[in-house]
């Protein structure tokens, strides 16, 4: 059995947080929210770039499994997770997470499913450009559909036909 050392190190941050001055929680949260709001335009532009890169990457895929291409596409869609919510597009975040799950499952099973990827990218485009006008029920239906598609590959013992 290896030796285990358990101790309680001092935490300077705890003391600093208690020093006089600072901000009330409500003000801090409001200031941070305002700061994020100022990034809205940049975030939207970034997402449009992500969509273009993802579509052109997926378009290069052949019918067979290609690990390098899957890695590239995964990096493109997983890195910006968190950005859409800053511009009020939480549904785009959900779509990106579903696509990342799908790519992760495909990698694990060394498979490629062009249709499953394409349906995610089409939903990404739709949600990015029409979120403001779309009704909540429609958006939820799209996301539920995506989740169903990616979850088809979640269990390797029952691969889809």
């Amino acid at each position, binding site marked *: *059995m*290896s*030796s*285990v*050392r*358990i*101790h*309680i*190190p*001092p*935490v*300077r*941050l*705890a003391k*600093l*947080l*208690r*020093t*006089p*001055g*600072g*901000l*009330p*929680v*409500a003000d*801090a*949260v*409001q*200031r*941070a*929210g*305002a*700061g*994020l709001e*100022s*990034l809205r335009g*940049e*975030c939207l532009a*970034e997402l449009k770039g992500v969509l273009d890169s993802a579509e052109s990457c997926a378009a290069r895929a052949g019918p067979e499994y290609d690990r390098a291409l899957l*890695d590239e596409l*995964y*990096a493109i869609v*997983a*890195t*910006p*997770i*968190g*950005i*859409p*919510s*800053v511009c009020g597009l*939480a549904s785009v*975040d959900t779509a*990106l*997470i579903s696509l*990342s*799950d799908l790519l*992760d499952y495909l*990698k*694990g099973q060394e498979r490629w499913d062009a249709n499953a990827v394409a349906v995610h990218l089409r939903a990404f485009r739709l949600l990015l450009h029409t979120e403001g006008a779309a009704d909540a029920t429609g958006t939820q239906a799209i996301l539920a559909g995506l989740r169903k598609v990616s979850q088809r590959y979640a269990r390797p013992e029952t691969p889809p036909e």
Partner: protein
Amino acid sequence: MGLNPESRARFNLERASVLMLEESTMGMSILVQILTGFGAKTLHRCETVEEAQATIQKVEVDLVIADAMGAEGEGYDFVKWLRQSRIEPNCFAPVLLTAGHTPREAVSKARDCGAHFIMAKPLTPIAVLERILWISKEGRRFVECDSYMGPDRRFKNEGVPAGTVGRRRDDMPAEVGEAETPNMEQDVIDGLLKTRRVEL
């Protein structure tokens, strides 16, 4: 837990030195807006693990917020390096890891890297603040052994794993032994539970 976003309770991050590791420019901007909104002034922005390691060797940091960084999870490797670096006091710093998506291959890496908490993106200001306040609590135990170095991951004390005797001096056996003192009288128990008027 649940921090009330309307709370007037104060906290002070002005003098805290915060290291941020985030490869995405937009992700870094989001983090910066959140932290400056909280009043933090000393922010060390690192886009690569190498930059973050160099910063750890140069300055004292009070808080680390690191992204998992891609499918390979370089951010997890950085936290593991930080814990094993023995650069005090930085190696004991509270670490908040953020991750957009965690591939299945990286789950055990994420669990074992030694971070205090792993937050799934998207980040919201109230959730980040809640976690910063939580991980900065004093009195948190730190575990050092061959396979792990970081904060104690036991949040709930459910006893030692089944079939083992435990490795800590204060680990209790699963079997409850015979009582060593007489049972309490029912009147005493009732007295403890009785509702009483409190003078304020």
